[in-house]
């Protein structure tokens, strides 16, 4: 579904991604692991066309998408739950969700109502707060809103950048349960995480990024059992 082939990305003269190749197949949850500044978020931004790769190709459902404008890529069915949530703080919860459905303005009203209902069912708290400004929500609620907003686009591929960051442990489990549920409803997911154990526990496959290079990729189960991964990301010596 999504395929990166030998992608290089630079910030000015600074190389961030070096010959990154990865693939996400339809129906999978793929997990991208890596420490700070390893290039995880840049990979997301490259896929979405927020930054342009300097070499290599990005393909989505068989078409090259590198070089397309971000909004065009979004219209093809890729959504993002960004790092640090980045909800629209000065808009209400309802307005945030309706922005999420921006690319589906021509969808029948009933379909949109269904999608709102789906978000309200996943996150009952959001329904209670639908008229509140996004900025007044707690961190956990904002994360729910960010996920809900991305779902409103009915993406075929959902990118999630550190969905567990800054959340209490209880909420982390809840968020990952929801990720699994979303995947079960037919959305393919690429998730970037620092919290490797939880992420790998729900993923099909995983890639490890280090200094902008993919150093390991394997099934999630194998990665969980790999010594170097355990040492680097699971906090074990």
């Amino acid at each position, binding site marked *: 579904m999504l395929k990166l082939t030998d992608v290089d990305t630079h910030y000015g003269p600074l190389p961030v991604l070096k010959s990154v190749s990865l693939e996400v197949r339809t129906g999978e949850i793929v997990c991208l692991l890596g420490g700070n500044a390893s290039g995880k978020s840049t990979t997301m931004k490259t896929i*979405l066309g*927020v930054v342009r790769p300097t070499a290599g190709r990005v393909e989505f459902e068989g078409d090259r998408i590198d070089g397309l*404008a*971000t*909004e065009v890529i*979004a*219209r093809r069915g890729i*959504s*993002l739950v*960004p790092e640090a949530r*980045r909800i*629209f*703080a*000065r*808009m209400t919860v309802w*307005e945030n969700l*309706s*922005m*999420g459905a*921006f*690319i589906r*303005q021509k969808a029948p009203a009933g379909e949109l109502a269904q999608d709102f209902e789906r978000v309200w069912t996943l996150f009952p708290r959001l329904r209670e707060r639908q008229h509140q400004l996004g*900025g*007044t929500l707690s961190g956990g609620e904002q994360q729910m809103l960010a996920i809900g*907003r991305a779902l409103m*686009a009915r993406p075929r591929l959902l990118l999630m950048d550190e969905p567990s960051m800054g959340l209490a442990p209880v909420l982390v489990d809840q968020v990952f349960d929801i990720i699994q549920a979303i995947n079960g409803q037919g959305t393919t997911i690429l998730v970037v995480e620092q919290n490797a154990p939880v992420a790998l526990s729900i993923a099909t496959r995983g890639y490890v990024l280090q200094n902008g290079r993919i150093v390991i990729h394997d099934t999630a189960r194998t990665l969980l059992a790999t010594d170097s991964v355990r040492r680097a990301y699971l906090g074990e010596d």
Partner: protein
Amino acid sequence: MADVLAILPQQLVFGLALGTVYGLVALGYTMVYGILFMINFAHGEIFMIGAYVGWWVLALLLQAQVGALHPAWVLPLMLLPAMLFTGALGVGLERFAYRPLYLRGATRLGPLISAIGASIFLQNAVMLTQGARMKVYMTSLLFPRDWRIQVAGASISVLVIVMVVVAGLMMWGLHLLVQRTTLGRSIRAVAEDREMAAIMGVNVRRVIALTFFMGSALGGAGGVLVGLYYTQIDFFMGYSAGLKAFTAAVLGGIGNIRGAMLGGLILGLVESLAVTFMNPAYKDVVAFVLLILVLVIRPTGLLGESMTARAKV
């Protein structure tokens, strides 16, 4: 003193008219600032050009001798071309004077200086093509001088009421557009987080261009109304009016649409009161002293929110 009280209601209505027009022009500054964080210093010239387009329509109608002119159809006929022309001009400015700069990552100072250049260019373009002498709006043919109504002992000219109503309706329309429609939501989304808006599928450049169109069109409408009221226009009129409207925008909190309307209203009322109670020469002094006082107490303006407070959420 009794004399002063007798004209007070009239002055208040006048202040209201002036205030709504300031608000209308201030919206152009605040909308552009909200979305690009730049002050469009050429907005005063857009306002001035709106006044010229309105003047031309009126002049052509008079030349064509279409008979009796009634504001009910002449005013829309003046406003519409003025708004379309200035709106398109605003889009052109954004496309050719600002976008090349901000797209290439110039500092905020780049587009700002380009705006000052555009302002000088537009002033001179109008001076060259329309002449340096002022033009006179034949307002009395549209709104006869004795066309006044009595409200609570005050005699108010119909023109002033029309100004308040037209400017008020436009502001209300803009408010509804920004708050209730998908287009309005995408404008607010781009203002808040351009990158996320693009990720939602919003065409950011188009939204920025539309914002320039709307802000400039409102400024152009303001030009027509002010032209009708003061009856004299010249190529330099945008300078002081622009400065006033900019003051109104800062007073209300730049970047905040309701703030621009409120700031305009307050500025207009304060000015008209200053003229009532003091030597009219001091009216600008009063306006700017008010601005300084508000900024000392609330540096972000009346309805503005500080960036740091928002970042802390």
